[in-house]
């Protein structure tokens, strides 16, 4: 065995090394964020937020259509994914402690782990292809499918945190099980379920791959869900790959808008759940 001195030296070396790893991880976030702010602020202006794209060279081009499109797509996705996810999560927590529940959980986790591009391919084969056109609706379905397993599992976990005594109290009052679940258990878990839903929204807001073959993109303002629709993420992808300097600036500015939205959601969730974290 090496001498005590060398062992102590190794010990402090590893402390420093692991600390450096943590520093590196934290620094890389700020490094990336720094570039987004630095690159994004140049192209950002009020006109950028309220105008739709103009042809190359024309001033006052903007991404209003992409912002509106993203909001519509996320709303569609949430409208489809959240009710299904929450109800499915209720089932898993209240009735899912058997073999069948395990099987469901396994498949639901499989869906969570499925690459998002494949969800896009799936929606293309069952919706876009039979219908014959790309549409915001199919994009919303793709995002909804991505949300379902996330919302279901967080709902399940949050409901499980509700003390058993609350259920028993409700049942002892003579209420049927479903009323206890909806009126007492779900209500107690509501804030947790809501924060889980917010995280799911933050997650799908950044998705591009499921939209490539469904909502596609669109160069002008449209709110028709039976047409292709622009989104911030698709627009960033599109602009980044184009050869025009002007579009690159727009991609950075759009990124700043998107990342600000997503980080704000994440930080809001963090602040809302801070008390729980401290107890845990």
């Amino acid at each position: 065995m090496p001498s005590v001195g060398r062992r102590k030296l190794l010990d402090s070396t590893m402390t420093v090394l692991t600390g450096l790893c943590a520093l590196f991880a934290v620094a890389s976030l700020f490094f990336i964020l720094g570039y987004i702010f630095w690159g994004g602020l140049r192209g950002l202006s009020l006109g950028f937020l309220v105008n739709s794209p103009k042809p190359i060279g024309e001033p006052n081009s903007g991404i209003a259509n992409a912002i509106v499109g993203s909001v519509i797509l996320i709303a569609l996705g949430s409208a489809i994914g959240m009710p299904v996810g929450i109800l499915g999560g209720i089932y898993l927590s209240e009735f899912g402690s058997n073999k069948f529940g395990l099987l469901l959980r396994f498949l639901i986790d499989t869906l969570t782990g499925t690459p998002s591009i494949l969800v896009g391919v799936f929606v293309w084969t069952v919706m876009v292809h039979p219908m014959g056109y790309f549409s915001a609706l199919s994009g919303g379905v793709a995002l909804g499918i991505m949300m379902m397993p996330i919302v279901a599992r967080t709902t399940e976990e949050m409901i499980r945190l509700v003390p058993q005594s609350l259920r028993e109290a409700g049942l002892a009052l003579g209420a049927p099980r479903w009323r206890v679940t909806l009126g007492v258990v779900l209500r107690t878990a509501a804030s947790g379920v809501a924060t889980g839903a917010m995280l799911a929204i933050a997650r799908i807001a950044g998705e591009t791959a499921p939209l490539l073959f469904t909502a596609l993109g669109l160069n002008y303002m449209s709110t028709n869900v039976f047409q292709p629709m622009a989104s911030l993420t698709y627009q960033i992808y599109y602009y980044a790959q184009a050869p025009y300097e002007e579009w690159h600036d727009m991609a950075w500015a759009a990124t700043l808008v998107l990342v600000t939205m997503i980080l704000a959601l994440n930080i809001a969730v963090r602040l809302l759940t801070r008390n729980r974290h401290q107890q845990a």
Partner: protein
Amino acid sequence: MGQSLAGGGSASSLTPNQPTLQFGRAPSSLRARPRIGDPLFKWATGFFAVLIAALAVLIMVEMAINSKLPFAKFGFGFLSRSVWDPVKEQFGALPFIYGTAVSSVIALIISVPVSLGVAIFLVEKAPRKLSNPILFIVQLLAAIPSVVYGLWGIFVLAPMLRNHVYPALQSTFGFLPLFQGNQNGLGLLTAGLILSIMVLPIITAVTTDVLRAVPGTQREASLALGSTRWEATLIVLQNAKSGISGAIILGLGRAIGETMAVTMVIGNRSQISASLFDPSYSIASVIANEFTEATSEIYLQSLIELGLILFFVTFIINMLARLLVWSVTRGEGRGGHA
């Protein structure tokens, strides 16, 4: 509680003959009614749970159905063919499997030591007051959208690598075929580097969970025998081995399925080249790039068959990872505070 809820089956299974009490209001009826509420509730919620689970199966079935043509034509040879020629309608998956595998392995080689370092620091060294905020910041890395990593990769990382890092690598290790050839910044190595940042948060988070699930008594026992903190940590790592493997495999699953960032920096050329500087292609990125442009049925279906391969690979990887993580955190971490 809404009005509509008051009317439903208000009889309880526990006290069928007792008057029924309702929350916050006087009982509207004291008579027991047929108890359809509970089974109905179970079936309704069950329907949605099954729906989500069924989607996972449906995605696979739908892709299998839609990749019959190439399967009939190439069979399992599809996996080992390296030609991708839409004009002659010859398709094979090998270049994409190669690109996916190599970029993911590069990502793991870089991010595993760093992630483990971060996790060890958070659990074994830093006080909770410091470790929770750091963990949150690392989690924010996972919140940044893939397409943003791609943008950053194209305009920041790739030029930096092309101008500074790759020339240096070449002049030092240029005798290896891995680091030969010209460097335009977009290629396998760049994709791997971007992926390494993207999988860092997931490996860190799961490893942190796993390490926290190792009982503190193990550390105390080791320290009591006179070991240093680091030696105690080694004991902890030893016992968390399978969970950490799970975390790494989970990261691998993420890297393999990652689409946008990889598509934007991997260079998008279907070739198998020894050089890590050369452009390549991954399964996810060829689907992203060519799916809407596929001109013939067999071209489209070949892309879907690639998707099916991706599905199976991520399926197996995620299953393995979950089993491994579960073997360590079972009964500890998650359920502990319930």
